[in-house]
């Protein structure tokens, strides 16, 4: 299996995968199919189990239960060196005592493939680093090391390429450039890419399909546009971009929409965009869909209106300006406005209203967490103490 070159990528299938470490569960129950040739991203905060998933697929960790299939073949019990999988590590893990070319040829030589050197030069040419093949990894810049790590993995033509936050250590500009480069290389070689990242922008720009992970589970899976437009849970709504969330009981239902009563304000959401239609429902809208008004506007039934509220913060970020409003009953509301004119639309402290098209709202499956994790006036020292206590009690339980 590892002896042959894969002609194309293979499917990856995870069936009821569990992973428990002493003291905590890294992966609750994972069922996932990644089709051959796709660029799949696992997105989540640190500690959500995404890297563990990757290490399970690579064979660097053993699953507690469940099965892993690559191209339909069960590889759950096989050793990492027997799997048709290669990894680009977060730290790159280039062998410091070998030249760049020897690094790239390592996998080919272990499998006894002929012309390892020639194939390695080709792979280095693909990442435009063939002229540096005689150097040691320590003599390369971060971006170059990252490309060598990529070449070292793809030269083996693995059925599945695993990327463990490989762009995390690069600066923003280089990261953007490498994202494009990775994407074009994936198009070129046609392998299946499984990319793990905590950078939501990176996941959205690069992947065909994104799975958002939280606490060892996949919260939602789909195309980036779909996830952004229709988040299903409060976690997804806030992890993938920002959201304004409002919670209240459903006060009215029509054939196509539901109305939620948020402390006296009626917010309407299309039924097709809401996960639940009865009881207490959390609805939301993205900050860039909101329009700011300095006077109470006349709105028809196609728009929701909130206000009046007060601007409590204005922050300018070049392309857009972020306004934070305090709206009685609805809490704080974030608005992104494109900077099409000069200067902010409204000043700090101004009285404003916001409105948005009913079609832009969404209704969540769960409820928004009731309060922020820490009080606004808590200092970092107190947070550290709280964190430590929580950790200690967790350790005692374990």
């Amino acid at each position, binding site marked *: 299996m590892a002896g042959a070159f894969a002609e194309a990528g293979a499917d990856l299938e995870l069936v009821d995968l569990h992973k428990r470490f002493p003291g905590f569960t890294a992966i609750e129950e994972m069922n996932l199919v990644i089709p051959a040739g796709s660029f799949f991203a696992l997105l989540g905060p640190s500690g959500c189990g995404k890297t563990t998933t990757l290490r399970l697929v690579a064979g660097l960790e053993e699953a507690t239960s469940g099965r892993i299939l690559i191209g339909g073949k069960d590889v759950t019990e096989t050793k990492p060196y027997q799997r048709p999988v290669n990894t680009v590590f977060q730290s790159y893990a280039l*062998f*410091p005592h070998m030249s760049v070319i020897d690094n790239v040829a390592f996998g080919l030589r*272990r499998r006894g493939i002929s012309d390892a050197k020639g194939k390695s030069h080709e792979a280095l040419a693909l990442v435009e680093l063939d002229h540096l093949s005689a150097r040691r990894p320590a003599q390369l810049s971060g971006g170059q090391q990252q490309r060598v790590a990529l070449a*070292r993995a793809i030269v083996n033509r693995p059925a599945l390429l695993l990327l463990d936050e490989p762009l995390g250590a690069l600066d923003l500009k280089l990261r953007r450039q490498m994202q494009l480069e990775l994407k074009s290389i994936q198009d070129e070689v046609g392998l299946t890419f499984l990319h793990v990242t905590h950078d939501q922008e990176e996941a959205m720009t690069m992947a065909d399909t994104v799975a958002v992970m939280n606490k060892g589970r996949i919260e939602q899976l789909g195309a980036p546009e779909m996830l952004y437009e229709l988040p299903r849970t409060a976690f997804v709504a806030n992890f993938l971009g920002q959201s304004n969330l409002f919670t209240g009981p459903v006060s009215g239902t029509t054939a196509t929409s539901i109305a939620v009563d948020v402390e006296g304000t009626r917010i309407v959401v299309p039924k097709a965009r809401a996960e639940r239609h009865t009881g207490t429902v959390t609805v939301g809208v993205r900050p860039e869909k909101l329009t700011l008004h300095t006077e109470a506007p006349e709105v028809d039934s196609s728009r929701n209106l909130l206000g009046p509220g007060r601007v409590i913060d204005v922050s300018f970020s070049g392309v857009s300006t972020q306004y934070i409003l305090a709206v009685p009953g609805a809490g704080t509301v974030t608005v992104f406005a494109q900077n099409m004119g000069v200067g902010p639309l409204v000043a700090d402290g101004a009285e404003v209203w916001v409105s948005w098209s009913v079609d832009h709202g969404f209704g969540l499956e769960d409820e928004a967490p009731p309060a922020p994790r820490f009080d606004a006036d808590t200092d970092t020292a107190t947070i550290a103490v709280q964190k430590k206590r929580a950790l200690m009690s967790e350790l005692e339980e374990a």
Partner: protein
Amino acid sequence: MTLQEGAVLADAVTAPKSRRRGRIGRTSWILPSYTTLALVFLLIPIVYTIVFSFNNSIKSNISWRGFTLDKWLNVCSAQNVCQAFGNSLLIGGVATVVATTLGTMIAIALVRYRFRFRAAISLLLFLPMATPEVVLGSGLASEFLGAGVEPGLLTIMIAHIMFCISFVVVTVKARVSSLDPALEEAGRDLYGSPGQVFLRITFPLLLPGIIAAALLSFALSFDDFIITYFNSGSVQTFPTFVYVSAARGIPAEANVIASAVFFIAIVIVITQQLAAAVRRRRLARTA
């Protein structure tokens, strides 16, 4: 500690030093003079040993009786000198190979694996370094006596291996803990079997630490006197030979061997520094 082991250790353990040079003011002649005095004080015994290796001595080698190369050309003419030196080399070689092999394995196990009594073993390994040599030596001697083992080459080797292991473990452990586990994982990921990963990745990356540990072991074994003296029986090593013959006057041939060892150590250190300089220049050129 000999010069050689000091230099090797410094190379293996310290990070690249940042060199900061302060300017010496016109009035601050105190530090240079103090340094010169300290160096003279340190080097006089060595210079004395070297100079008296050329002494045309007859029986005792205490007063200067004229220059000769005879002692250098016929080192083995004095009774037992060469045999004792040979014993020291043999014991040092065997102790180094065995202690380095075992110590490296222990170091890897202590860093990489979690097992019962791991912390206790780490602590116990420090004991031979902390215990006075007299205690270790006499303790071992009574052990051997109790077990009915005839003291000789074998008992000396066992004793040396015992105290060398601790130093090897400490030296190699530092190297293992600085080794990124992701490198070995990358090796396994790139179709390397466990044996291949060890041979091509782990071992070459640990090698500087292992070499330093081996040189340290050899140096420790070569000039150990106390433990050896307790466990040697009728066998003589170079240090015990020098000690015993001190009563009757040390032959100049012993000075020859001591000087030769000193020169060899100096040559090793200089070669190493030169090789490092060449390597740095070559790297700088390709960069």
